[in-house]
């Protein structure tokens, strides 16, 4: 499975799994990886992941998308260990063969997800925003250290053998919560209460 390793900021070393599909990086709320930085365009670039490889495409960003220090003008197929720079962020591209082979071009499709599959896009977005928004007055405080306790797989080194984990949905549809409103949750509680009374 293809992945990106964060190379900058306090989340350095974390891995982001690339699911098949498109993952947009940008300032826009709809972006899969949201980066709250003025150096990043609303829709900056997109990772297009297929079973055979990952193509990085610049979406006409103002400040450019860089692979190994060179601005890409249109799109480019990523090779193992390519370094991608988007505004203040740096990523390193990992492909399944990058650990044991030197080339990432002839990767074989693998259906197994790597063991960090429990990470959601919201997670990713908040890590990244944290990196670039020092001292923002947001609602959320992230506790990265705690998280490592909970999920020891979060920052595994690259090239770990994929384990048979149930694949999660592609990047475009992060897992949604069960209850959207207090009303829905209340209705569920009342229903369960009435059921327990009835039985």
């Amino acid at each position, binding site marked *: 499975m293809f992945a990106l390793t964060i190379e900058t900021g306090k989340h350095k070393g974390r891995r982001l799994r690339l699911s098949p599909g498109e993952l947009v990086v940008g300032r826009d709320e709809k972006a899969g990886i949201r980066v709250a930085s003025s150096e990043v365009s609303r829709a900056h670039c997109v990772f297009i992941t297929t079973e055979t490889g990952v193509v990085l495409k610049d979406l006409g960003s103002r400040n450019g998308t860089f692979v190994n220090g060179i601005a890409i003008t249109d799109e480019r197929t990523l090779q193992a260990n390519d370094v991608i720079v988007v505004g203040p962020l740096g990523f390193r591209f990992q492909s399944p063969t990058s650990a044991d082979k030197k080339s990432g071009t002839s990767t074989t499709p693998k259906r197994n997800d790597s063991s960090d599959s429990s*990470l*959601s*896009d*919201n*997670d990713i977005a*908040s890590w990244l925003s944290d990196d670039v928004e020092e001292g923002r007055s947001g*609602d*959320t*405080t*992230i*506790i990265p250290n*705690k*998280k490592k306790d*909970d999920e020891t797989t979060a920052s595994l080194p690259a090239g770990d053998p994929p384990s048979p984990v149930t694949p999660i949905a592609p990047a475009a549809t*992060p*897992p*949604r*919560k*069960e*209850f*959207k409103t*207090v*009303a829905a*949750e*209340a*209705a*569920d*509680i*009342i229903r*369960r*209460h009435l059921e*327990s009374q009835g039985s």
Partner: protein
Amino acid sequence: MNSALSPVIVNRVLVVDDDRDEAAFLKEFLQQHKMQVDIARDAGQAHSAFSMHPPDMVLLDIMLPNNVSGFEVCERMKTTEPNVPVLILSAIELDDAFDLAKRVGADGYVTKPYDPDMLLVKIRETAELVWQRGHADEESVKAEKVRFDCSECGKRLKVSGAHRGHRLNCPQCGNSLVVPRHD
């Protein structure tokens, strides 16, 4: 603040309950203890009474008619007037109900059937607690850290006390959460 010397006086109580017998019993009982009681039978009446005659205490049932539960009533009351204590009176004894009550800002939860004298104690305790919280200085509120778990994925979160009652998305699973108003 020594609570024994300066008890918070609960004068006007709003009872929100669609069960007429229950409401009538509470009214009589609380009147015996020198409280003035208004009764609301559903969410709409509760909000009208709450805004027209702000009570010193709300006793709130969960299962109300017209598909609006006490949780939503509580959430709205706490949004408009966080310093009016809300005590939930319900037959529901599920942990999720206690948890949700906390998240919508309820200051206490009493399960039915209850001992009326215990209820009276609980009313006074809750009023005292809310009064003290309302008069805590702002600095200590800001410095305070609220720790709670995401109800969906169990992620442990820690935010500033200034965010109590605000809504946020869990950074791990995206679940929409309300920072508990109190622990």
